[in-house]
């Protein structure tokens, strides 16, 4: 068009109109450690944080509570005082009392110790078992894998509660230890499946070959090299397993098969309180709500961990 001729004289031929290949400023990012990245991610999830805080408070409640609050006599009976038996929640007895005048708050704390202990210990046993089985199955593959997975299938097919009821009635004696072992025996399957999957995928990666060329033996490969990479899903599974184990123990105890007197857990408190539920409903509500909120918090934390751990590999 015509304007260009006029413009030509006004403009210099060195029009700075286009960016030549610029050098982008070097971006120096301070790398956070992996742990820090995961922690930051987790903290962003408010629900998970609430769950984690609740769990911490719960632990303190159950384990430190008795000494701190002075409600530390779960078995002390107050049979003589009418106002102290079947008392609804009050300042003196925040969770009320049962028909023998026993302090429900104290019982909740001590029972919580058992419930949490059983849940965690059985989870740890199950995870160790599951990781071991899964690692072997995934690493060696072939017949070993096949056999172990068939075994897993069988265990998963049988309805868990029914079997546990029968076995619990027959083999356990009401102590936490027997219940822990029983629950653990059936808890390893999902962890095993998980770990096997991870191992199958990871064993073909280069870092495994690299370690092999340096002379690493099988065991070392499995547990020093591959396992840390599979840690994420295992941790998530562990959290959720804890919550289902706590439920399992509660169910068993409620039906009279798990924890029995003189031991107490939230489940057994439900068992005891059911008969009195019409006149003293708090005997039901206290353990029931404690179980619910514990499970809810564990689920929230587990989901939060899953979100925090999962994509951390892709962050640069």
């Amino acid at each position: 068009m015509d304007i260009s001729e006029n413009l030509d004289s006004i403009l210099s031929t060195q029009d700075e109109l286009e960016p030549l290949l610029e050098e982008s400023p070097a971006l120096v990012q301070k790398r956070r450690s992996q742990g820090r990245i995961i922690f930051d991610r987790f903290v962003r999830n408010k629900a998970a944080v609430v769950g984690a805080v609740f769990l911490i408070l719960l632990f303190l409640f159950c384990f430190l509570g008795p000494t701190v609050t002075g409600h530390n006599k779960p078995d002390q009976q107050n049979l003589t005082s009418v106002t102290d038996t079947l008392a609804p929640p009050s300042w003196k007895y925040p969770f009320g009392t049962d028909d023998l005048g026993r302090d429900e708050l104290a019982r909740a704390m001590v029972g919580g110790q058992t419930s949490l202990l059983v849940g965690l210990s059985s989870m740890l046993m199950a995870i160790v078992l599951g990781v071991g089985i899964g690692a072997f199955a995934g690493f060696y593959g072939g017949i070993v894998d096949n056999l172990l997975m068939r075994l897993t299938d069988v265990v998963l097919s049988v309805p868990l509660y029914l079997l546990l009821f029968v076995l619990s009635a027959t083999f356990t004696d009401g102590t936490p230890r027997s219940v822990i072992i029983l629950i653990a025996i059936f808890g390893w399957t999902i962890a095993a499946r998980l770990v096997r999957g991870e191992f199958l995928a990871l064993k073909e990666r280069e870092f495994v070959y690299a370690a092999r060329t340096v002379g690493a033996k099988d065991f070392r490969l499995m547990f020093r090299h591959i396992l840390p990479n599979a840690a994420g899903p295992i941790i998530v599974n562990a959290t959720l397993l804890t919550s289902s184990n706590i439920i399992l123990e509660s169910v068993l105890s409620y039906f009279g098969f798990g924890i029995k007197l003189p031991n107490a857990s939230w489940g057994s408190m439900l068992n005891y309180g059911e008969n009195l539920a019409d006149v003293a409903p708090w005997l039901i509500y206290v353990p029931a709500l404690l179980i619910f909120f514990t499970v809810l918090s564990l689920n929230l934390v587990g989901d939060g961990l899953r979100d925090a751990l999962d994509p951390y590999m892709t962050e640069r």
Partner: protein
Amino acid sequence: MGEYLLEVQDLKTYFKTKAGYVRAVDGVTFAVKPGEKVALVGESGCGKSVTALSIMRLVAQPPGEYAGGSIIFEDQDLLELPESAMRRIRGGKIGMIFQDPMTCLNPTMPIGKQIAEGLQIHLKLSKDEALKRATKLLEEVGIPDVANRINAYPHQFSGGMRQRVMIAIALACNPKLLIADEPTTALDVTVQAQILELISGICSEFGTALILITHDLGVVAGMTDRVIVMYAGRVVEEAPTEELFANPRHPYTLGLLNSVPRLDEAGHSELRTIEGAPPDLLRPPTGCRFMPRCIYARNICRQMPPLEPLVGHSEHRKACWLDVTDPKEQAHAEQRRQARIAAQRAALEAAMSNSNSSSTTARSS
């Protein structure tokens, strides 16, 4: 109705994101006559698909918004119509086929029913009548063994066959306008020609206007009456097909045409590209959007050029202040080009010598 079947006037379609509005279509104007075949070309991200979706009002409303302009179809502004009226137009007056035939058909519905559905909605046919029409349509689009295939499911067809089914669906109710959004991009090369011929043939036969969206200029040449070139959400040039190929006037069009490798040029010569990348549509530049990449650019280009017809060629419009046929402009552009190439080489050498002196590990690009 006037001369045009469809008039898009200063259409603006924006997408709301956390960072602001992405102006995918930012003032697009063009028109289509009845029975005319128009190509809408441009690179990925230039807004041609969004324009097509806007005409059908299929843009997802929460992030998307029709921020301005009008789309006049048969004397009605489609942007002002109530949704129920728009539904009658979709499939009934305007048909659309999409890019990936593998995912565009409902996997749990037999294809006969999928074609018949439109007939039942718009032409109010009964189920049986609709299925009979559907069978005929399938024959017309070239599906063999129709009697057996009418009840088959999409996964039992190949990609090319599925696209034929899509064409049957789009044209079932004999719409006035067919919009084809990159209909052959996802298909085998051998099948591409067949599908394009099919579309072209049916449109000619029934007098259906066609908007063919593509980034492949080769496709455009044989099929269309007119070409509209889009860049960064705006129309930059528009002309009858032969005129555009013979006499391109916008630097972007020039670049596009030059970048197509030709059979008659020396082998092993460098591919010509257009340097740079399209602008960020969140904060588009206020002037001509092609300016940063344009070798012809002048200071005046900092103002947005209007889409105006060429002197003496009312059918040929361009949005550029400059005359690229002017030898002075061409000389200036050539200078710019050489300077650019030299600068690139210098920067490349600088980078190589840096990497040679600093580390020995290979860099991944």
